[in-house]
């Protein structure tokens, strides 16, 4: 386990930063918003993720990926956070790839992992059913029906739901265990309602009305399907935290740049101690978040059994710090911080939305307490 990036990781981060600054700057998100993009992301950008070799970051070489692990995935997400890049990377290349890795059969892996690596598919994870993330509250049912299943239930705010060509639905089975099920969003009995959110993403609600599934829709490769589900959530949390960290870092950098250039009382406002102390405190919070995110990601790669606590802690901290960084950023920008013209408001919005997914700081702090036995 190492905190310092190795050479490969540095190269990955540098190329991600350069590429995203060029191909997915904040203006790209503005364009998606202003054009009312139906999916909330650009398919062109998604294809180029494959060309960069990122889509298969968690896919083995046998299946056409680069198998670089969660630490690498986190670096890409952190850079995405910096430019607010909207892409199915987290849902498809991280969550769906992890789901197949943990719970897929050989046949399912051989079919889907190469497509993920090639950037040929967008896969969304249909998980939450309530207003707040609650991984235990799963009422969607997959009832055994002959060789297959019948799926019924409702899912809310499925990320990339509007643009997905495959869903992985979290459902309870007859023995009350959690299972992961592949569902074609165009199948009979599936209805979709798109929800435009404050951060200009387009998640969707899904209703499953006695949807008939083949037996091989079930990801049946895991010995313990419930445990695989928990590990999927943890991996997702660490990776979502990495994006939030990037959001926080750029919000902070933008703010420092602004206060260094804006003058009042004849001097740069950055010379005022009231702002300096807030900035220095934020830097401290950023350092803490950065350490936890890195720790969670590298632990997922090297000692997965130790990872859960680090993942929830990282998710809690990154959520809190990204929201704080953007909120402080608006305050330190003064009036222009409230305008659409400046980016800081977009960071504030994304920090809120990214923080909600897989549990905010309050939820994950509760998990920390539970895992720590108090």
């Amino acid at each position, binding site marked *: 386990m*190492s*905190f*310092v990036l190795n050479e490969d990781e540095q190269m990955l981060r540098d190329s991600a930063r350069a590429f995203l600054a060029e191909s997915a700057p904040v203006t790209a998100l503005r364009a998606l918003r202003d054009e009312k993009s139906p999916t909330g992301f650009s398919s062109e950008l998604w294809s180029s993720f494959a060309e960069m070799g990122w889509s298969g970051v968690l896919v083995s070489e046998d299946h056409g990926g680069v198998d670089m692990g969660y630490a690498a995935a986190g670096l890409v997400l952190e850079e995405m956070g910096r430019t607010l890049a909207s892409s199915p990377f987290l849902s498809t290349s991280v969550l769906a790839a992890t789901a197949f890795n943990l719970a897929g059969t050989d046949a399912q892996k051989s079919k889907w992992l190469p497509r993920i690596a090639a950037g040929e598919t967008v896969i969304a994870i249909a998980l939450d059913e309530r207003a707040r993330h609650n991984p235990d509250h799963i009422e969607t049912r997959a009832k055994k029906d002959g060789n297959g299943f019948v799926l019924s239930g409702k899912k809310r705010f499925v990320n990339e739901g509007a643009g997905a060509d495959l869903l992985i639905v979290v459902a309870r089975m007859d023995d009350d265990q959690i299972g992961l099920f592949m569902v074609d969003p165009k199948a009979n009995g599936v209805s979709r309602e798109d929800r435009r959110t404050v951060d200009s993403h387009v998640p969707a609600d899904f209703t499953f009305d006695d949807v008939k599934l083949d037996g091989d829709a079930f990801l049946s490769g895991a010995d313990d399907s419930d445990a695989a589900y928990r590990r999927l959530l943890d991996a997702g949390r660490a990776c979502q935290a990495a994006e939030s960290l990037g959001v926080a870092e750029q919000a902070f950098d933008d703010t*420092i740049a602004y*206060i*260094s250039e804006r003058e009042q009382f004849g*001097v*740069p406002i*950055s*010379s005022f*101690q009231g702002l*300096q*102390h807030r*900035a*220095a*405190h934020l*830097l*401290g919070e950023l*350092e*803490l*978040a*950065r*350490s*936890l995110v*890195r*720790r969670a990601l590298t632990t997922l790669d090297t000692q997965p059994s130790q990872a859960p*606590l*680090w993942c929830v*802690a990282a998710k*809690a*901290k990154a959520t809190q710090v990204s929201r704080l960084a953007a909120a402080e950023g608006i305050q330190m920008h003064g009036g222009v911080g409230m305008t659409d013209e400046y980016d800081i408001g977009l960071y504030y919005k994304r920090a809120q939305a990214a923080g909600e997914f897989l549990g905010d*700081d*309050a939820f994950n*702090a*509760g998990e*920390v*307490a539970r895992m*720590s*036995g*108090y």
Partner: protein
Amino acid sequence: MSLENFRKETKDWLEANCPQGMRQPIKSEADICWGGRNWTFASEDQKVWLERMAERGWTLPTWPKEYGGGGLSKEEAFVLKEEMKAINARSPLDSFGIWMLGPALLKYGTHEQKLEFLPPIARGEIRWCQGYSEPGAGSDLVSLRTKGVLEGDHYTVNGQKVWTSYADKSDWIFALVRTEADAPKYNGISFLLIDMDQPGVTTKPIKLISGKSPFCETFFDDAKALVKNRVGEAGQGWEIAKYLLSHERAGIVSEAAFGGLNPVTAAHQSGEVDADGKMSDPILRGDVARLTIDGLAFDATMRRVKEEADHGEGVGARASLLKYMGTELNKRRNELNMSALGYDGLLWEGEKESDGEVARSWLRSRANSIEGGTSEINLNIVAKRVLNLPGA
């Protein structure tokens, strides 16, 4: 020797030489061995442990052997630390000589000064205190006025220091003294080593809110400091002082991060838990969870900074950031301990020797963000030297 062999030998040696009484967590101040001429050992075990470790140079594992250290590589020192931790071994010696003066002497001292002063630090024979702050010079330390006049082979020193921790128990003091009256204020200070066993040096304890008197006013009335005991050049004192402060900050941080009571244990002690052992107040539990998260984050950050330092990215002004974050965290931990203990935390004096310990620790923790540069001063430093914001 390979690291694996070193580990094995170290383990065997510790097993054979660390007295049982030194294999328990530190329970109170008296369990910490500070050393010095006037030191009375809390137990025979404490004495034996210090002697054995000092003989190997392991009170200061990475210092050169000729100066009383162990001559270990960083990796070996880490192994030693791990193996000590594995058997719960206490640190054999803690002192300002180790944390502060030692590193400064290693960097700025002459070979003769190192030979004279470092081995007694390593063996715990001489106890040092730090004479920086004055009544008129706290955060604005550079305005200090204690004066030294060169007279032949010595300086005659006059003035007053304050908040001198453990001055009444110390043998020598490293002091900042204005020796160059005409130089600009940053260039007029020298770093002098002064023997306190002389009529010109007196100390007067100050009582604190924790009920203890760990620090003093220190008075110099025609005190003598030999010129050969000046570290660095005349007027170089401020540079040395700043170097030393960064070590002091690192020391305070590792102290702050160092265990002690935590609010979960406190809640069990006060009975504020449900039948299944969960903290019964949900809001307090939430606050404790956030503390746990920041504690994990802080530990991870310390490791990261160490790793980065090994890769040549110096800690530098980031020590100020860690000092600020670490000490604020420690204050929070103490506050939550008190909340979890409720009325029980208020106990001050009673039959048991341990009465008041938690409250004392809580009160002591308030000083963490004052000593070694206040939180505000450290934030100033971060703003200026890490973020490069314009100076006031």
